[in-house]
């Protein structure tokens, strides 16, 4: 009865991340703080990253409210960040964006996406791509700000 591509969008694992967001903690003394807000729907995500000495991400915190896609995307991302450097994070962001734009990924890029690949179905729903990207643009801004502060 339901169109199949809806199931492509709302995969079990996505809805699970929506209901049970991972890393749902607030890190008070974070190095990188990211805030994303979509004025059209009111969706919000907040990420905090704590780095260790060599610049790799040690800990991640996430809070947010909004639709399943924006929240699952953020929750899934938190699971991929740990251990990555900011540069690797940036590469991950690019790979994800390219997946959303329907571009062909290299094997390496696909690899880097890890669990986030489950969001591939979103690209059939153009208006929802923004939801999936919300956390990524927030992260981009947050990293930029962090780098600016360091300089």
């Amino acid at each position, binding site marked *: 009865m339901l169109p199949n591509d809806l199931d492509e969008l709302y995969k079990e694992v996505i809805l*699970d991340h*929506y209901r049970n967001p991972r890393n749902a903690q607030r890190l008070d003394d974070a190095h990188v703080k990211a805030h994303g807000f979509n004025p059209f*729907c009111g969706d919000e995500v907040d990420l905090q990253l704590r780095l260790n000495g060599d610049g790799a991400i040690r800990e991640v915190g996430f809070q947010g409210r*909004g*639709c399943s896609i924006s929240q699952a995307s953020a929750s899934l991302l938190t699971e991929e960040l740990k251990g990555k450097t900011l540069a690797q994070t940036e590469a991950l962001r690019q790979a994800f964006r390219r997946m959303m734009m329907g571009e062909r990924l290299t094997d390496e890029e696909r690899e880097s996406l890890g669990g986030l690949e489950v969001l591939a179905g979103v690209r059939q729903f153009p208006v929802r791509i923004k*939801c999936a990207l919300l956390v990524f643009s927030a992260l981009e801004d947050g990293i930029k700000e962090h780098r600016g502060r360091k300089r």
Partner: protein
Amino acid sequence: MFDPKAIRKDFPILARTVHGKPLVYLDNAATSQKPRQVIQTLVECYEMYNSNVHRGVHTLSMEATERYETARQKAADFIKSPAPEGVIFVRNTTEAINLVASAWATDNVGRGDEIVVSEMEHHSNLVPWQKVAAQKGAHLKLLPATDDGVIDVTALDTVITPRTKLVSVVHVSNVTGAVNPVKEIGRRAHQVGALFMLDGAQSVPHMPVDVQDLDCDFLAFSGHKMMAPPGIGVLYARLSVLEKMEPFLRGGEMVREVWYDHATWNDLPNKFEAGTPNFTDAVALGAAIDYLNALGMDAVRQHEVELGAYALKAFAQLEEVDVLGPKDARQRAGLVTFTAGDIHPHDLGTFLDHEGIAIRTGHHCVMPYHRKLGLVATGRASFYVYNTNDEVDLLVQSLKNALAYFAHAS
């Protein structure tokens, strides 16, 4: 006889499908669909007498001007404006309100004065006044809403005071659907010597609106919500108020005489219509008004009350669904804003879209009131003359499916 099934035949877009399902268009409060009579009027303009209005002695220009001014007369008659000059053509409700916030407020609001709006205003009737308040050192005050989502008349006497210069409220809320008690609000405004403005974006398309009976000084509405194209809207204003106002935008057509260092202003309504006006969409608005008049605005209102009542009753059967606004369908417009369990409205919107059903999801440009209610976003189904009980049934069935789908999936 008011027959939505017959009316539907006039709206070509209603024959299309979305994701393989017949389109069920329930986003009329955002914008309405257009009947072929309106589309055909546009085509005729472009094929027969397109020209710059007011500016030429040639036949085309004369024909275009005549139709433009006839459209103005139709708009004036539609809202019972005593004179066509009380109708200023603008782009939309938002521009109409900005016009007043600029051209009227500049000379009429001072330090310590008050502007009063309600808690449930659309951003378009809130943000312009924030600027006026900031620039003038004036206070922006809020009329509260009752729990039913209606402007609370018991607050009128305390909120509206002798320092109040303007009271501007939404006639019909695009969130709660409430038909607000605007006559009482207007009476209080005039009692303290304030002007009274109505945001008619959701009322003028859907019910008889009579500016003389409502005794308002300004009324703003948008063509695109009443079967006309986007790009055309109306600011109605009382002539005596309009005559004393400075112009808004400056340039061609709104002047009488121009020197290098100064200029004098043209008569009403030209004084407020700078530059080449959107004459074709104005003429199409005239055609939309003809269409609505042929249906009869009382009948339009009646249909939407019935549809609203039918929807309210059906929604009441769904335990997880909460509806905003008045309980009595006669106190509200044909729109239903709701939450469905903990399904995020965007997810719901996507789900319904896959069933061919278009509803609006989000804050509907009414963020502060959503925030006050503790909501980020809601779903809204809004009806017009071509919607049917069958479509409401489809919506309700799909809502049930969505609740099952997201419950099952989790």
